[in-house]
């Protein structure tokens, strides 16, 4: 078959289309390779004193506002901060929340899956998290090295850098 302009055009169009498809595929967990890591020093320092500094793009602004109001009982522990720190951290988290104008595509997917009246306090309670983890059997969550759905780093080896690519997942055997 001679290479005609028409067949070339079809080939190019097909490649372009497949490129778009790959770009939006769920192979790596979503169209954007990562969440924006926490870029505010006080937020990073204070949150990471006890746990991974979860990216602001994991929850909508109303979730962060509620959490920052309830720091005296933060999942059963007192995590209270000075009024100045509380204001600064709340501002960073809400400015970069999943429903903020700065949110990336993945964060927007998290936000649209949450009912307007809900202000979830755990990312693991969102529809987006459940959808992406629905193939994980119940028993896996109970393994000692995982123990909690908040323990991202147990399986997502680069979670501390806000990277959750599928190829980086290593599920502990026990």
């Amino acid at each position: 078959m001679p290479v005609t302009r028409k067949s070339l055009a079809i080939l190019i169009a097909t490649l372009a289309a497949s490129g778009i498809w790959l770009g939006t595929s769920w192979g790596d967990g979503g169209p954007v390779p990562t969440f924006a890591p926490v870029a505010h020093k006080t937020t990073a320092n204070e949150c990471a004193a006890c746990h991974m500094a979860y990216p602001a793009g994991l929850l909508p602004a109303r979730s962060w506002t509620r959490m920052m109001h309830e720091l005296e009982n933060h999942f059963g522990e007192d995590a209270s901060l000075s009024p100045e720190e509380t204001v600064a951290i709340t501002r960073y988290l809400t400015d970069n929340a999943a429903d903020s104008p700065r949110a990336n595509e993945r964060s927007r997917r998290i936000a649209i899956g949450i009912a307007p009246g809900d202000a979830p306090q755990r990312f693991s309670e969102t529809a987006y998290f459940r959808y992406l983890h629905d193939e994980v059997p119940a028993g896996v969550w109970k393994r000692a090295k995982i123990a909690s759905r908040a323990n991202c780093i147990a399986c997502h080896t680069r979670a501390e850098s806000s990277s959750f690519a599928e190829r980086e997942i290593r599920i502990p055997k026990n």
Partner: protein
Amino acid sequence: MKFTLACLAACCLLAAPTHADTPQQILGLYQQQAGSASAAHGEAFFHAQVARDGKTHSCASCHTDNPRAIGKTRANKAIEPLAPVANRERLTDPAKVEKWFKRNCKDVLARECTAQEKADFVAFLLSVK
């Protein structure tokens, strides 16, 4: 010229940050509030087990029994040693010391710590060699 340099040096000295307290100075602050400080009482306080809501709480649950050791938060994050002998940053920032007393006393004792408890505990940490 010399005068300008001297002025500059004086300005630098005046502008130097004052937050770098020593553990000894922090002990002094609490001792002043409490009137006294006992390392032995502080050690007992550190190891005390408090029963509440069917669970036992203690400093050691997260910090381990050894103040020279690295502890672990409930969320699996490392906690640098409590004793200044093992962690040079410990007890050098009064605001940080107060922040963690407030949080952890509430978590372990369900109340704030007294000035006496704080003074005793800091004295204990400083006695660890």
